[in-house]
């Protein structure tokens, strides 16, 4: 069907045997998003599956990052931005009047494209989410910091330097620190906006391994420009183009037998 060799994808997928419809964590229906008069998302329907990695792909400016950021309402700050449609997190409308955006963001964590540690120590970066949640007990914080750093596969590299400055870590370490920081508040969903795009291949590999490890406990949505990465790490893939969700389905299908011509052209590198 396509010019790519997909054997490596096929070899990785069968472990996930789906019996009945997979559980949906986030259900998006008829989502339109506007920056002023500029429409960035058109009528998107999307189901984010629980405890799986969902990749969002598509050319620059196609709306995939906007879509990601509507899921924890990070777009709220942008002047003139407006979302129309429903986004249900475990059945609750996140734009509903009784949803506190702060609580939503504690539940739906985010890792950004460019690592953005605070100008504080490594320890304080990871402890931040707990401190703002009002946790004072330093045993609890110590433990959460260690666990999160272990989860993010950074503990061994920084355990002797927890009071060192975060900004002195390497780029890859900073990004893993940001992941640890997001994990420390025990989120339910983890949104990742091209978390490895600014990293070298070795650091990228570590982040991908990490995502692999995390998906048994977290629902992960990841935006990526890297086709191979989407194919390697995700179970489901959505292809966005010009603000529309062109195709969404199991990653194997999107990369081997897409039903849309535009998807096929994109994943085979014919455009974008």
């Amino acid at each position, binding site marked *: 069907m396509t010019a790519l060799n997909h054997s490596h994808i096929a070899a990785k997928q069968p472990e996930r045997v789906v019996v009945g419809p997979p559980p949906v964590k986030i259900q998006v229906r008829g989502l339109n998003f506007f920056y002023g008069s500029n429409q960035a998302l058109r009528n998107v329907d999307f189901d984010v599956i629980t405890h799986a990695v969902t990749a969002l792909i598509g050319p620059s400016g196609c709306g995939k990052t906007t879509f990601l950021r509507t899921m924890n309402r990070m777009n709220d700050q942008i002047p003139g931005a407006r979302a129309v449609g429903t986004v249900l997190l475990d059945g609750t409308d996140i734009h509903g009047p009784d949803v506190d955006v702060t609580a939503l963001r504690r539940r739906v964590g985010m890792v950004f494209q460019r690592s953005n540690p605070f100008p504080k120590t490594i320890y304080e970066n990871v402890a*931040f989410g707990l401190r703002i949640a009002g946790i004072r007990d330093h045993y609890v914080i110590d433990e959460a910091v260690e666990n999160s750093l272990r989860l993010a596969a950074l503990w061994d590299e920084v355990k002797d330097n927890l009071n060192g400055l975060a*900004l002195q870590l390497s780029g890859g370490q900073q990004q893993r620190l940001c992941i640890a920081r997001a994990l420390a508040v025990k989120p339910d969903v983890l949104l990742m906006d091209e978390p490895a795009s600014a990293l070298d291949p070795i650091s990228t590999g570590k982040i991908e391994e990490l995502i692999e490890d995390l998906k048994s406990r977290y629902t992960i949505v990841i935006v990526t420009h890297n086709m191979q990465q989407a194919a390697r790490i995700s179970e489901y893939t959505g292809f966005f183009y010009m603000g529309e969700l062109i195709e969404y389905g199991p990653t194997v299908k999107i990369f081997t037998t897409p039903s849309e011509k535009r998807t096929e052209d994109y994943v085979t590198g014919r455009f974008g």
Partner: protein
Amino acid sequence: MSEGKSVAPHVPNMGPDWQQYSVRPGDRRRDLWMGRLISAIAFSAIAAIILIFLFIGREAAPVITSSEVHQEVTVAKMIVPLETRPGKPKMYLWQPVSETPKYSLPPLLLGSLKATLVAILFAAPFAIGAAIYSSEFAPPRIREMIKPVIEMLAGIPSVVMGFFALMVLASVLKDTFGWKFRLNATNAGIALGIAIIPVIYTVAEGALRAVPRQIREAAQALGATPWATARRVILPAAAPGIFAGVMLGLGRAIGETMIVLMASGNAAIWSPHLTDSIRTMSATIAAELAEVVNGSAHYHVLFFIGALLFLLTFLVNSLGELYVGRLRRRLTGVSG
């Protein structure tokens, strides 16, 4: 070169002629002269400061060196309490035109410090608070309004501010708190504080706005409320810049003259109370230099005070700079 030198293999130039990439001689000349002109401008500014400093130093030096001046005053006499009448306790006195002139510096120094202290304590919370509001909380439209309005405060001539403090503020404060003197350290300090609010505000607001958007987003994405974001992330990250703003305000307050001249009462009293009148170093120079006999001891003492003021601001700025640098390194691990 040594003997075993390797000979570069001859590669024939197959590319285009170098000529078409060359810089025109006119451009090169212009570059050279513009560079020189700009350096000259920069060094003139530095030279002006050095010359002013030398001039003040030259006029102040006789206080230390000239025996003629020493008949009337010495540095030692300026810093110890003086005998007034037999039997009365010694005290600090600034009476430069009395029969035996007295030039005690401590009350003037204390006056300057008291006014500056009140000014900073008054201005810093307002200025920093306003900066936090306009950079973190205000809707864009209100921010666009607040910033120019506060910065307009800087455009109020200090003589107008002094007049306001002299006529209005002093009475209000006296009536409110029942103080003995209308014109005192607090009155002058508050007026001074109003004058330096825009200085601190502008620098602090700039520092807060300069905190990268990514850091703000990181905090928000972790579920930080606007206040938590401001207090735990933005403020610490902007601390060096905010501190620099306070230092700038401090430097401005120490040297500010017209407001304190009008609103402080100008009495050189050695007193710890902020409700007593004060006489600052700057106001003393402004009030007396125009009347003084050129070359007299009094004249040289005034310049000596000027030199002191200069050193004081220089010290404040240097310490501020040092501290800001340390703070910045502590936050990021890199200087600059």
